[in-house]
């Protein structure tokens, strides 16, 4: 067996994990599974693509940074895209989710997110057509790093970016007052309100983190694979499976779950064939639900 699947798995796992952070936060703090999360990914990616093209139109062609396939425009565009996706999530919460939440009917919110997901994705298809596009069509030479593994500079950069982001979110959740408020709200909403935690601001932070990370995950897919309106929707099942495998509400769990699923998928592609890849998350999901439904780092419901 070729060890190359480790690199592929870690990369897929990073994309899943970054997305799963948003899913797990929404689930533990807002208490619903957001089926529109994948479409945040796609919207963020298309927004980033639009900004890249806009910069390209304004300053002309920019040479990529030494070994990478992209230059500073993509980095600037990514930051803009993250802000845009966060705003989109906030907006959707304001016009839709918050109103339904206030009626106290949690499962209706899930259904609304399903409807919103359809609408968001179809709007992308309407605006950009369903044809796949790319950030760059340049082909990178993969460097051998031993054990028969090859990796491109882009892949190294994106793995490092993932590590930095995950560490950052983890520190935010554990070391800051905002993070502690978020944990309090997810553990006991009523008590959190009583001690005077500003619920509205915690909800805002949740959407901002979830949206921004979804955008990063989407741009990673865009750089390494391709950009399509369905790119986020196809990630939905792996993201849910990762969030549940890691334990709802746990950031390290979501990332670890994502990596496990990414590695399993990459292994399955080598052993069985790429066409069965999507079934891997489902099998892992069912196994977790039967064996340990609270996940690796989950806590029992209070």
């Amino acid at each position, binding site marked *: 067996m070729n060890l190359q699947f480790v690199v592929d798995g870690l990369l897929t796992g990073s994309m899943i994990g970054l997305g799963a952070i948003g899913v797990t936060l929404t*689930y533990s703090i807002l*208490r*619903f*599974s957001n*089926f529109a999360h994948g479409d945040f990914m796609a919207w963020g990616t298309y927004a980033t693509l639009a900004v890249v093209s806009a910069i390209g139109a304004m300053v002309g062609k920019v040479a990529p940074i030494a070994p990478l396939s992209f230059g500073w425009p993509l980095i600037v565009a990514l930051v803009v895209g993250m802000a845009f996706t966060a705003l989109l999530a906030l907006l959707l919460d304001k016009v*839709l989710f918050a*109103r*339904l939440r206030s*009626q*106290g*009917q*949690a*499962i*209706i919110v*899930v*259904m*609304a997110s*399903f*409807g*919103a*997901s*359809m*609408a*968001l994705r*179809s*709007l992308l*298809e*309407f605006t950009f*057509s*369903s044809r796949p596009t790319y950030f760059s069509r340049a082909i990178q030479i993969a460097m051998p790093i031993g054990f028969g593994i090859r990796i491109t500079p882009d892949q190294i950069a994106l793995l490092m970016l993932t590590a930095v982001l995950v560490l950052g979110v983890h520190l935010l959740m554990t070391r800051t007052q905002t993070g502690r408020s978020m944990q309090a709200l997810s553990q006991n*909403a*009523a008590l959190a309100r009583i001690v005077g935690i500003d619920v509205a601001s915690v909800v805002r932070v949740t959407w901002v983190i979830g949206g921004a990370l979804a955008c990063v995950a989407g741009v990673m897919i865009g750089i390494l694979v391709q950009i399509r309106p369905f790119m986020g*929707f196809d990630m*939905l*099942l792996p993201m*849910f*499976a990762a969030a*549940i495998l890691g334990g709802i509400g746990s950031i390290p769990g979501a990332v670890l779950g994502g990596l496990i699923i990414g590695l399993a998928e990459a292994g399955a592609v080598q052993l069985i064939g790429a*066409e*069965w890849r*999507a*079934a891997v*998350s*489902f099998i892992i*999901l*069912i196994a977790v*639900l*039967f064996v340990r*439904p609270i996940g690796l780092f989950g806590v029992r*419901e209070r």
Partner: protein
Amino acid sequence: MDLLGYGAFFLTTALIFSLVTLGLNLQWGLTGLFNVGLAGFVAIGAYTSAMLTTPDDAARLGGFGLPILVGWLGAMVVGGIAAALTGMATLRLRSDYLAITTFGVAVVVQLVALNAQKLTGGPFGIGFIPRPFGSLAETPLLFNLSNLAVVSVVTLIAYLALEHLSRSPWGRVLKALREDERAAISLGKSARFYRVQAFATGGAIMALAGALQAHFTGFIAPDNYLPILTFQIWVMLIVGGSGSNLGAVIGSILVWAIWAGSGTLTSILFPPEQQARAAALQIAAIGVMLCVILLIRPNGLFGDRPRRPWFGRRTKIAQAKSSSGS
């Protein structure tokens, strides 16, 4: 004459949709179980029946050439078992897990339909599915009308059976579980057992609808069972009003009329190269419509009550916040 033929064709399709919606109404409207993978159960029914009834085919397994009624029965059994297994895996957990799992079921069924060529014919699907009254195919009008008659009878039977079930002691237990789980459990009713039964029955009805559709068109392919189907059925149920069987049927006909009408409209208004984009806009508009209905009229046209779905232990918090009466 053409108009009559088209009317029969339209109504046949709409009634098949309403059969799926009736199944969903049993799961969601009556029992509060959230199924976002119903396209998977419809596909299971269609493929099962197709495999049982088509003539022998060397390229794939099956083609048993059995009578159509056997195919329908087989579809219900397999669809019911699939739904029961899904329910058993998830119904002891929080309701969102059921939603995610059903979503996964649809993804996996789609994968099997596409990739297990030996079983499902792969992307090209299964053809030569026998049609009831196939001998009438030379006279389209008669053929359409006889199809309509068959589908109407099946839908009517399902409707009457479901109406009876929801008033029976069994249906009352489901309603009791939906309204106040703890009270029902304290009366000695096993919540999980009843929910698995309801979910399996709903799945069987959906599978039957898939089988009907397969025998009505004579050809099935994985493309027929994309998430968009799940979405259409949900809009139909919500528009009609979940909880009401009559609402499920009328909602299906109404939404299918809007869907087919707006489809015709876009095909007239837009040039051929813009069709795909226009279709995307159509889906977006209906997605927005679903959200708006949820916001302003969550009970739809015929919804029976302010709903209070099963949400595990979380319900307590939600109930404490909402008004105490119902």
